[in-house]
Structure formats: C-alpha cells, structure tokens
C-alpha cells in the first residue's frame, strides 16, 4: 500500500535538513556568520535541535561547546522545541509590581507544567517569562500566541487559555 512520492510534499525532516545545508552554504561556511545561521536554522525548526547544532559546528569547524554557548547566550534562541501556542508572561518591573508572578503560577497550574518545565508534553503549550513587552500601561501583561492581554488577574487565566485551546483541538485535556 505504498503511496506515491507526491511532488508537493510537506516539509519532511529530510527537506528541512536539506535547507540547513543550504543556509550554511549561503553563508559560505563562515564561522563568524554563526549567529545569522542559527537564526535561520531556528526559523526552520522553531528551535535549535541539538543534533542540528552539532552539524552546524562540524560544518563551520567550530567546537560544539562554542556553538552551544552562543545558542544559550541569546534569549532569542530556544534549545527546546516550543509548543504550538507560546504564552509569554511579562516580568518587567511594572508587571512584576502588579503581581505578574501569581498569574504566571496560575497559568503553569492550569497547563499542568512542573516547575522548570516550559512546554507541555503534548507540545501544545510553551510558557515563558519575559522582561518588559513595552506595554507597561496595561500591566500585568500576558501575550498568548500573538494576542496581547492586559490588566489580568490570576482568576481570568483559565477562560483565556481555554478560548485558545478550544477552536484548535477537539480533545482538550
């Protein structure tokens, strides 16, 4: 029951990896282009898989420890896969004094994430703490996906998250 190799295949792992090769070539394998290369690789995978980082290190003739160091230094890079929806809770000064952390804890509880766990096991959610989203007037602020929510209280969390979850998946936890 083999299906044909459809010419309009979705991005399989193989094709993605082909593109990593192309990215590195486009930057002429220059070690000093490491950061832009990692940026583009992250666009491909939504995070930086460890094996791909090893490959980048080999291709650029850099040590894996160095590449890992750069990848962990910039907050922009993610080393873990992110969930389908990313929830970012602002912990900048304004939000912090308006009690953003209890909101963070409420979200964590609702998504059943253990301490230190950022992404739910079903890869639906990723919860992050960020510093200042530039919307201090609305403090405390939470961004769910692309949607900014201001002046929140912990009690409002479940409804907001469920509203995102419902249209996408039929089977909520």
């Amino acid at each position: 029951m083999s299906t044909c190799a459809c010419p309009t295949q979705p991005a399989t792992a193989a094709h993605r990896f082909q593109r990593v090769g192309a990215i590195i070539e486009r930057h002429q394998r220059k070690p000093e282009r490491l950061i832009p290369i990692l940026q583009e690789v992250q666009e491909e995978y939504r995070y930086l898989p460890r094996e791909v980082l090893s490959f980048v290190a080999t291709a650029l003739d850099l040590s894996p420890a160095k590449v890992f160091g750069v990848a962990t230094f910039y907050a922009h890079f993610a080393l873990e896969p992110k969930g389908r929806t990313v929830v970012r809770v602002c912990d900048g000064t304004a939000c912090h004094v308006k009690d953003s952390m209890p909101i963070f804890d409420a979200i964590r509880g609702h998504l059943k994430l253990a301490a230190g766990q950022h992404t739910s096991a079903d890869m639906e959610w990723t919860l992050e703490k960020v510093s200042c989203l530039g919307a201090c007037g609305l403090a405390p602020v939470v961004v769910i996906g692309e949607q900014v929510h201001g002046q929140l209280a912990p009690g409002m969390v479940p409804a907001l998250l469920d509203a995102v979850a419902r249209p996408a998946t039929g089977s909520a936890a």
Partner: protein
Amino acid sequence: MPTTATAASTITVDGRTVPIGQARNLLEVVRASGVDLPTFCYHSELSVHGACRLCVVDVKGRGVMASCSTPPEAGMEVVTRTEPLRRMRRTSVELLLAAHNPEGPSCDRAAACELQDVARKVGVERVRFKPMGRDLPLDRTSAAVHRDPSKCILCGDCVRMCAEVQGVSALDFAHRGAATTVQPAFGRGLGEVDCVGCGQCARVCPTAALIPAPEIEPAWKLLTAPSTTAVAQIAPAVRVAIGERFGLPAGAETTGRMVAALRRLGFAKVYDTTFTADLTVWEEGAEFVRRLRSSDEGPLPLMTSCCPAWVKWVEQFRPDALPNLSSCRSPQGMFGGLARRLLPKALGIEAKDLAVVSIMPCTAKKAEAAREELRSEGRREIDHVLTTEELARMIDGAGIRLGDLEPEPFDQPFGMKTGAGLLFGASGGVAEAVLRYADAVLGDGSRRDAVWEEVRGPGALRVATATIGGRTIRVGVVSGLRNAGQVLDDVKAGRLALDIIEVMACPGGCVNGAGQPRPARGAVDSRTAAIHRADRCEHRQNSADNEEVGKLYKNTLGEPGSHTSHELLHTTYRPRRRIDDLDLLLTAGEPGGKLLTTVCLGTSCHLRGSQGVLRGLLDAVDAKGWGAQVDVRATFCLEQCASGPNCKIGKEVLTATTVDKAVAEIGAQLAARPQG
C-alpha cells in the same frame, strides 16, 4: 625607534623606578618589580581576560585600571596599595566567595585553594554577601577530570586553556546572567564529549571546580586488602615535583625517599616507569627503522605515542594520521603488560592477587589505564593511577614525613634505568632518548651519550637532525596540542619535512602535568632542569645500555617488534567520534521493515563530501518513491574515518561512498527483500 633609554622605558611602581623591559602588560611590570599582585584569571601563557579585577592599580592621571589588560607606557606612575584598591580587591574576592559553593576542609583543593589563599591575602574576614548557593550536579563521566560546577567562579581560565593551548574547546561558557556556567556542549559530561583528558583546565582552575579524577580511596582499599600484593610504578616526572609538597625546593631530588615512602604505604614492590621508558626507546626505535626501510611497515613521520591525551586527540581530530602513530603503548601501558605477564610468577603469587598502581604526573594516564585496549583476561592491567598530588596526600595522610626518610633503591629488574629514560619527563626527552639510541645502534656513536640541546628549550617547535645509516633524519618536538595540530598541518601541506614527531600535550611536557602539585612561579623550569641533571647523574645515558632491558629481550620478548612484544608492549587505535550524540532522523519510512540508511556527517566524512552524498540520496529516495521503505539518517562519525565518506545501509558499511554506489546498494537490498 628606541630613543634615549632610562626615562623612556621605565615606570614607577609604588614610588620605585622599574624598567618595562619585554613586559606585555602592566601586571608583568608590577610583578617583576617584586609586588606579587594576586590574580585568578591571568596566566602568562593564555590570552588576557580581565575579569577577576584583583590586579587593579591606580595609575596617576588615569585612575583605577586592571593592570593585566593595560599596556605599560613609559613614565606611568603606578600605585598598588591604596585604601580604595584594598577595599576593591576585598569586595571582588567576597563576591567570588559568595558565588562559590564552599565546602571547607573536605574540598579537594582545600590545601591548595587559590581562592582561600587570596581571600586571606587581601584580608577578607567574613563574606558580607548572601551565598548564591548554586547546587549543580557533579560531572564524573570522565576517567581523567571531574567537574563540580557549583565551585566555579567563572574566571574562564579553563576555557582559554582548552581552546588556546590545546585547541580542543571542550569547555565553554553557556547561558548568561546569573545562570552562566562553564560546561561542555549540550550539558554533556566531559567523558561524553571531545575532551582529551589532559587536565590542563584543572591545573589552572583556581578552585576545585575541575579536579583530577580522584582515586585515593580505592588505592587505599587495595593496599589494605589482606590477600592483595600491590606493586607501584613511578613515572620520571613525579620525583622532581613531589618534594614541593613537603617544603623542599622545586626540582629537589627525592627519588630514594619517595621509594621509601611507597614501601611504608604498603607497596610490596616499587618499580620505575623509567625502565619501560628505556624499553619504549628500543621498541619505537625498531619500529622507526622498519618504517624507514619499507613503507609497508607504516608511514613516516612516525609520531610518538607516550602521551595518551595526544593519542586521544589524534583519534578524534586527525584520524587520517592514526597510521603515523607509533603502535607502542606508553611506558605506563608497557609496564602494565609486563607486570601481568611476569610478576605473578616472579613474586610467587596468584595472578588475581596482583594489584598494579601507577604514580603519574598526569590525568590522561588515568583515562589511558581505563581503555579497553589495556585490559587483559577480563580485567584492567593497571588497577589505579594516582597523581603526584594524590601520592603526596597519601603520604601526608599516613603521617609520613618524606624529608626525614632514608633513601631506598627501586626493586629489580624493573628498577634499572638510564638517563635517557628519565628524559621522558620533559618535552624533548623522548626525542633525545631516541636520537641517542639511534646514534649508538645505527650511527657513528659520537653523540650516543651527548646532550642534544636542539630538542631542549622553550620553542614551540624544535627540530634536530641526525645522520643514520647515511640518511639524514629530522626529528621534531612540540608540546601543547594546538601547536601539534599546526605541525601536522605543515607536514601534510609539505611546508615541513620531519621523520619523527614527539608530542606531549602539556606545555613543557610531563613535568607540567595536571597531576603535579600546583607549581609556584618558576617551579616548572626547576623541574625540567632537575630532569636534565638527573640524566647526567645516572651511570648510563643511553637506553641501549639498560642491561635489564637487554635481559628481558633475551629471556622473554625475543627481539624488538617480536610477537610477544606486540602482545605485551603495543596497542591499537581507532577513530573516535567527538561527541556521543543522537542521530538525525531525516526521512521516516513506515514503522517496521524499513531499510535504515545512515550517512556520516562527521568531520572527516564531511570534508570528503558526505553532504553531497546525503543530498543525492534524499533526492533519489524521492525520485524512486522509496519514501515508505527507506529511513535515511545522518550521524556524526561511524568511527571509520580513514575511508570516508561512509554510509551504512542495512548491515552493510559502504566506504568511499558515492550517490550511485549508495543508490545501487539500496536498490539491491530492497530487491532482495521478500515482497509483501
């Protein structure tokens, strides 16, 4: 343009005029003037980091500056002791103490902790900051070096050592802000990445965040086990350094007292690794002559194999040069082979009751003794490897005062040595021993016992030539693996012609090994001088004149390179992958029944174009509609680097793979499958 001297080339330090000389920075001038400013992150052989801020001085007209990163300029007026400077230093040390998980007396470094030492010097009485209390997991994956990241003060000395001197970069900074750590890639352990175990990172670590893998406890157990007969072997470089731990000057002669101390610790026999160093010269000399006569015997240049950190480096980073490595085990390894074969009978004990312990200046020797290749009859040939520092602690712990002991001789027959064997303890020594031997055996004998100054000294690469059997032989000596890599590149590119290359991973050789006591400034030079003196004090200077080695061949080994020699004294190498890592799954066939195809993207295969193979293969899988039957993966190193690009299809390993070859193989294997 050097103008009129004096004022132009001097500065004042605390009011005293000091010449700038060759100093590269203000710190060096200040230290040369006799003011020993404390530092954590400054090592003259590494690049300047300027992070610890302990070297601050006040420069008139400019204010407070870090002296390590300030170029000296004529006429500068420098003050090192003002109240604000003292306060600054104290605060810096307090902050470091707060960031560091203190352990007190149980700490591995307790006796030689630079952090505590400096804290005392700058007058820290109590730490006013809240301890950060980082509790990070210990890393004991390496047989050579252990890590305790909670004790790390982020000075970066290890990072720069590993990158700048060893060219390995197994460690680097990761994460940022308060979460910053120094660690191997991907949070792996040192034993799971490309670390070669040289321990130089631990040598410069000011705390106990990096330490030689400890083996004192199991060694004590062996020594006190009732049925066990423990024998020791001691490397040449140990004897010129251990005295430093007992208040003797660097380079003091302690051989006989050290032997006496080992007997008191309970070793039944105390042997000298210098004996097997002489033996190495015979074996490696013969190997060289064989290669010289016929390239079938192996390629030139012949590379020495006494340094296990270097050996691992070649296995990981230059697998194409593995055939150039001498197949001789290190002298420690040779001793292990001989001891297991000969000692049970000689000592009248059962083989299982013999315990072999090495005393080495080195951490890589710990990892070497744990290698698969140095096991026989299901056990390690060398049970434990203690560093010089560890032996000093055991002697201390047993309440033995080394300085008060009467010297005792080594046990025979593995106690006989020549000066040439002793030279193995310093960079250039193996080359010098081989040159003397070659001169005696094949040359005119005019320099058989001579000092070969050309291979001594501090230069990054030293070259000596000798005429042997009418041919001029060029011998190169290098230490530090980054230097060694450069030499290999030059040889490969034809810029440098050498017939023998001696490599030691530690700068200056074993005298500066990571297992040695923490050296005071200048101590390493004194140790080297002591090795050279010891050579002159021996009755014989040429390994060819070691009579016990001669007898060993007569009674047991036959001749150099014999079958028995190969069994006991030689070893094998293999390419090693640099990092234990998962494979990349690229296409997934249907579960079960899929044909697994793995393309190597490791360094060697990568350089041979494996990425093109992968690309072609993926295209072919698409074009032929094999998507459901074939699973294509990439991996990092199939450990067959010499013949890449490599590719594994089903159980078949293809070497020198081309796309056509791989596609044909996949097609054949699919066709051979039962149709379903």
